């Protein structure tokens, strides 16, 4: 099979053994790679009801057919496990050289099972798999871990690792690779920590032939050229930080734990202000022509730099009601170095700070609070205590969903999560297609698995009916599933005139298949149905597709404009969505539907 190694590397860290298994062509024709293949392998390797932080939850790294093609933005991989935040499917994507190395060692996917008794660092290269002692790396930051392994292993190894947060099983711990890129969401870093794996390094340069190298070479040139045009201007110039000032002006920037009552001006932390007033440089993932990554030199920190994008800027700033630039940059850097998802970390702190303001923290917890001088200091100390699981941080490391259930006193109503995953920086009371997508996403409150905001930002958005929003979210999810499985970076999407046509042709030129655009779109549908079926198997029910109560009870009032969404409006949209998916009104997938998609229960 062209484009694939046709191999899965299975590593059992309990017995410290490993083996290769064949990857059947049927499977990748159905699930492609990346997050689709990851979902398939999770379904196979995760026992029903597995506790996410136990030896039975597999941790899966997946490359894709486009990895190694040198097409722009395709050096990406997916990490998949049962999420310790949601108890459902947890998948996150990250990028750069390590994706090439995973494929370079001869694997399309690596499935890690079991749990080690002592801390280890895995090394995968042409010798096979080594299980090295990692006790000397404990407590080290993500960048120090990478650097240390680079020193001991020598040139050519690419490493994914966890920081102290992952070691301490912070439920929203991330996995870091290639100098600070993060597989951030859903807590895969905690799963890695529960297996006592500090790091996994790959070295391999195996080249996988493509079916039609000449056609690919032409596509490469064409895409490179187009990727430097108007379709990617925002990402190339200011990066995604550009969202902040726009969202603030349009009153769709969630602030102060989605209370949006802040009088603060966030203009001084806008992408525009950062670019004019701070030292900003651009960086690229491997094989990317766009370069959306903006590295900002942190003031008063020597030459220390932080990779900043909109969601981290939002979560370390407006979400917690902080507008101090230095605090935001340092907090974001701290999360990256400790290996924590910025959105969940910021949101959990924002919820806790609101509880403090409301005076509903249990007496016994108050004693666990760090000393602090002001709000900014409190936030920084909370982040530190979470990563260390010290004092109050040991509680907050469980995430806003679990801790709000423990406190009660109405605090669940303003814990801003869906299914246990905290909400990103898009305002669902104004962006109703996004509201639906956040509610129904299989991985919890996620903006990336549907890109539904695109519909809300279009010139027709005012006239959308609820039924159209249901259909749009289905379209957006299926399209995103194909992107995340091939894997393209989302920021290249507008470069395509016709995504499915062009992607099918590229996939055929890589694999030698004859897949048509419709079949490719159906892969997206199949992948989303499989993810949902996994969740159903793990106890999903209709009540999990919802939004936090605050979204319904607190409308946004800006002068004469009131933005709101009611529970019944959301319910209606969810019904339309289930209908468009061909599911029952309870959101269950009928067996005929599974059969028609070739999914065996």
């Amino acid at each position: 099979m062209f484009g694939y190694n046709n191999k899965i590397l299975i590593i059992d860290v309990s017995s410290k053994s490993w083996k290769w298994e064949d990857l059947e062509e049927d499977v990748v024709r159905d699930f492609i790679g990346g997050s689709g293949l990851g979902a398939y392998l999770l379904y196979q390797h995760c026992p029903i009801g597995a506790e996410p932080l136990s030896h039975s939850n597999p941790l899966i790294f997946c490359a894709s057919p486009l990895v190694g093609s040198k097409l722009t933005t395709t050096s990406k991989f997916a990490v998949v496990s049962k999420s310790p935040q949601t108890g459902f499917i947890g998948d996150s994507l990250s990028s750069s050289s390590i994706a090439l190395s995973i494929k370079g060692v001869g694997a399309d996917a690596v499935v890690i099972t079991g749990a080690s008794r002592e801390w280890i660092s895995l090394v995968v290269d042409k010798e096979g798999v080594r299980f090295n002692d990692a006790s000397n790396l404990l407590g080290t930051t993500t960048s120090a871990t990478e650097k240390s392994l680079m020193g001991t292993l020598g040139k050519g190894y690419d490493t994914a690792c966890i920081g102290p947060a992952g070691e301490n099983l912070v439920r929203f711990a991330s996995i870091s690779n290639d100098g600070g890129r993060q597989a951030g969401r859903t807590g895969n870093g905690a799963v890695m920590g529960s297996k006592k794996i500090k790091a996994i390094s790959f070295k391999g340069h195996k080249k996988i032939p493509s079916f039609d190298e000449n056609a690919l070479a032409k596509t490469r040139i064409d895409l490179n050229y187009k990727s430097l045009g108007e379709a990617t201007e925002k990402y190339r110039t200011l990066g995604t930080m550009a969202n902040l000032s726009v969202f603030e002006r349009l009153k769709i920037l969630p602030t102060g734990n989605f209370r949006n009552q802040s009088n603060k001006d966030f203009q001084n932390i806008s992408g525009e202000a950062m670019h004019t007033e701070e030292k900003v440089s651009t960086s690229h993932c491997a094989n990317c022509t766009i370069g959306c990554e903006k590295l900002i030199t942190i003031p008063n920190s020597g030459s220390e730099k932080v990779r900043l994008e909109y969601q981290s800027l939002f979560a370390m700033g407006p979400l917690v009601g902080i507008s101090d630039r230095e605090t935001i940059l340092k907090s974001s850097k701290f999360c990256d170095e400790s290996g924590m998802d910025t959105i969940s970390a910021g949101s959990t702190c924002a919820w806790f700070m609101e509880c403090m303001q409301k005076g509903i923290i249990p007496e016994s917890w108050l004693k666990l609070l760090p000393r602090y001088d002001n709000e900014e200091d409190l936030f920084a100390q909370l982040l530190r205590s979470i990563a260390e699981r010290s004092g109050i941080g040991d509680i907050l490391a469980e995430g806003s969903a679990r801790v709000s259930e423990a406190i009660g006193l109405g605090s669940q109503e303003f814990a801003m999560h869906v299914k246990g995953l905290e909400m990103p920086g898009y305002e669902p009371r104004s962006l109703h297609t996004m509201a639906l997508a956040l509610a129904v996403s299989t991985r919890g409150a996620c903006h990336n698995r549907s890109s539904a905001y695109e519909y809300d930002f279009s010139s027709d958005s005012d006239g959308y009916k609820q039924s159209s929003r249901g259909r749009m979210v289905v379209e957006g999810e299926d399209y995103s599933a194909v992107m995340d499985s091939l894997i393209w970076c989302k920021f290249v999407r507008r470069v395509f005139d016709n995504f499915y046509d062009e992607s099918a042709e590229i996939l055929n030129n890589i694999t030698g298949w004859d897949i048509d655009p419709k079949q490719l779109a159906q892969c997206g549908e199949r992948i989303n149905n499989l993810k949902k079926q996994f969740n159903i198997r793990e106890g999903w029910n209709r009540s999990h597709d919802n939004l936090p109560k605050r979204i319904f009870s607190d409308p946004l009032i800006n002068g004469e404009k009131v933005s709101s969404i009611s529970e019944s409006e959301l319910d209606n949209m969810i019904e339309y969505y289930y209908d468009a998916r061909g599911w029952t009104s309870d959101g269950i997938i009928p067996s005929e539907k599974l059969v028609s998609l070739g999914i065996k229960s």
Partner: protein
Amino acid sequence: MAINLTVELFGNSQVLTGQKLIDLQFLKPQVDICDVIQALGQRFPMLDGKVLDFGTKSLLSSYALNLNGVGFKDAAQIELADGDSILILPSQAGG
């Protein structure tokens, strides 16, 4: 009769010009987006080819228009009135 408009710039358009807000005055009874783009072009030539296309008097596809902070509009749909704010912002919403 004069029509006074404010143009609010976002993203790279703001960085290129160094301006967040630009006041424009038109001494005629009706103004459309082409007039606004022409006026912007005269004052800020650095926007040509980066944000605007002066030749066709239109925005590049990397930018979108919003009137008074409410809803997104195609240029043809926009009717301008005295006191309006026209937001020029990046059309890509991702991130």
